[in-house]
């Protein structure tokens, strides 16, 4: 069976085509194409501009995907799209496109939970059977474990997503959003050495980010780093304070932010692993590409006698193929989204989805 998946919940619009061989072999990615809306430095992506970008690209991407996959419309079994969660205006791009294609091609629709898409693609790519999942992106931060046909949320952020916190700090430092603010923070952090004290806010299995962002923002302001880096000014060359001691640099701040926040993520993941008795961790979502996070998670998992599974940027970052994968699993389990219900929604909890395709 073949499914096409459409994703547009944030600043990426993606189209993927997946094949589930009839003999039960592992799924094959036939196409996975995407285009990203990049906002200027110091700015976040605004819903209206992002949606305009997605509307402009989505048809081109569908055509490109079909071409790459070398499949014709009649081979496609169902059309899957992201129902939520996400930003309202961008979400509508995929939903409307999916509805149009459904009517045009007379194919059935499957509305997919974005988070479940990440989890299912991660499982398919890595082969992790029943991992504790850390889903960490610009919009979501959750620790998830599967239990009786639901992906249950064990811990989550009480306020802001981790990716959002990193993006916003990138804006404070006026770091480029190309290819992604988080990626650029990661590169800067590699040059950082000095750990500054930041709040560490783990509450049971939940975390809170707002105090950390406020603290690091105010540090950046107090060291005069809340502006574009000047020509020839190194990111890791400290200015001196009144007594001649070096101040933390941009690199140090990025380093400290990563070290603190990722420690919190690894901690709540470990707690969930201990709770459900799992030895596998799967990291999904855009922040999951971060090598330092993967490394820390790997050390934790090793010390528990387990292992960590992570995917690369093709699957970590929002994409259409994960929507096709989760949608096709649901479709094969009998799930359909009638046209009249083919809406999208900004709020859609991971544990609201009935996971009919797992035991």
């Amino acid at each position, binding site marked *: 069976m073949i499914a096409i998946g459409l994703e547009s919940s944030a600043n990426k619009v993606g189209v993927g085509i997946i094949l589930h061989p009839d003999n039960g072999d592992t799924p094959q990615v036939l196409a996975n194409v995407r285009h990203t809306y990049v906002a200027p430095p110091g700015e976040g992506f605004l819903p209206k501009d992002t949606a305009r970008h997605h509307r402009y690209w989505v048809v081109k991407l569908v055509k490109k995907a079909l071409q790459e996959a070398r499949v014709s419309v009649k081979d496609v079994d169902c059309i899957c799209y992201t129902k939520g969660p996400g930003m309202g205006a961008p979400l509508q791009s995929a939903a409307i496109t999916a509805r149009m294609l459904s009517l045009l091609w007379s194919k059935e629709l499957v509305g997919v939970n974005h988070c479940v898409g990440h989890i299912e693609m991660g499982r398919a790519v890595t082969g992790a059977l029943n991992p504790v999942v850390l889903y960490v992106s610009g919009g*979501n931060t959750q620790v998830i474990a599967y239990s009786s046909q639901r992906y249950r949320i064990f811990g*989550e952020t009480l306020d802001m997503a981790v990716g959002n916190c990193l993006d916003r700090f990138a804006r404070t430092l006026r770091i480029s959003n190309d290819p992604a603010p988080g990626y650029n923070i990661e590169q800067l952090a590699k040059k950082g050495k000095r750990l500054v004290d930041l709040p560490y806010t783990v509450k049971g299995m939940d975390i809170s980010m707002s105090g950390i962002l406020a603290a690091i923002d105010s540090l950046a302001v107090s060291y005069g780093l809340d502006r574009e880096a000047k020509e020839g000014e190194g990111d890791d060359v400290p200015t001196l304070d009144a007594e001649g001691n070096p101040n933390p640099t941009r690199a140090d701040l990025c380093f400290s932010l990563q*070290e*603190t926040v990722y*420690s919190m993520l690894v901690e709540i993941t470990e707690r969930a692993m201990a709770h459900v008795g799992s030895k596998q961790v799967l990291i999904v979502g855009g922040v999951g590409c971060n090598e330092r996070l993967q490394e820390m998670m790997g*050390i934790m998992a090793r010390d528990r006698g387990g*292992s960590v599974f992570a995917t690369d940027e093709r699957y970590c970052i929002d994409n259409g193929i994960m929507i096709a994968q989760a949608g096709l699993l649901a479709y094969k389990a009998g799930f359909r989204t009638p046209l009249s219900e083919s809406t999208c929604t900004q709020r859609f909890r991971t544990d609201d989805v009935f996971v009919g395709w797992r035991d």
Partner: protein
Amino acid sequence: MTTTTETYRPPPLPSLFATTTPPPTLLTQGAEAHLYKTVFLDASTPAALKIRPSKPYRHPILDRRLTRQRVLHEARCLVKLIREGVNVPAVLAMDWEGQNGESGQGGSWILMEWIDGAPVRVALERWEAWLAKNKGLAEQNTPQYQEGTTRVRDLLRRVGQTVGALHKAGVIHGDLTTSNLMLRPWKADAEVALEAGECPSVDGDIVLIDFGLAGQSASDEDRAVDLYVLERAFGSTHPRTEPLFPEVLQGYRESYKGAAGALKKLEEVRMRGRKRSMLG
């Protein structure tokens, strides 16, 4: 892109305990701490040793700060509660520095008073197993069944009273489950052989353990969440005892003046649950 690794090895004990004979026995291994049974001062005094190993995934400065903060926090809660007369294990000795911070070996530890008995979880599991095996007695409402139920109700009241005493002292447990409530038998030899049909003993004092997630608070909201967590734990762990859970709340209600406020808040917390809706 996966990393798989060799078999699990528990972190080395802090050097003070590395040469202890017999070596401390590992009881439980949580995400944060390892709990051992050992002795204190002399070989005949049992004690619980809770070690917070350093976490190699964390930056060493952050690691030292956190381990120290948490082990101290837990010890302070316990010491405060002992002073207030709440049933918790006493702190016998501790080391918040970990040893030789640099080596990253060992980590911080607390030696605590050993609490005899078994968790309330075990007592209730025994009771529920007895119920399951003696369905007939329950259906006929025999004197044994009635007596057993009365004893369990009494146990649940004591649980409520102990949680009440905890909250009265201004401390929130943060992880109230029936595994973290010990039942310390009144008689030393509680493991008496049961006569046929007699239900298992649930006699004993309730002692609260594991203050790893505890905090100081006197807010109705925090107290209510504590109770809610316990209520949920009953629901998932002891389905047959759950109908008697109101006894816990009754014991709680009678235990201190502010209880009514917390119980009122509990109704709100039940309605909304822990669920939060979220933006994408």
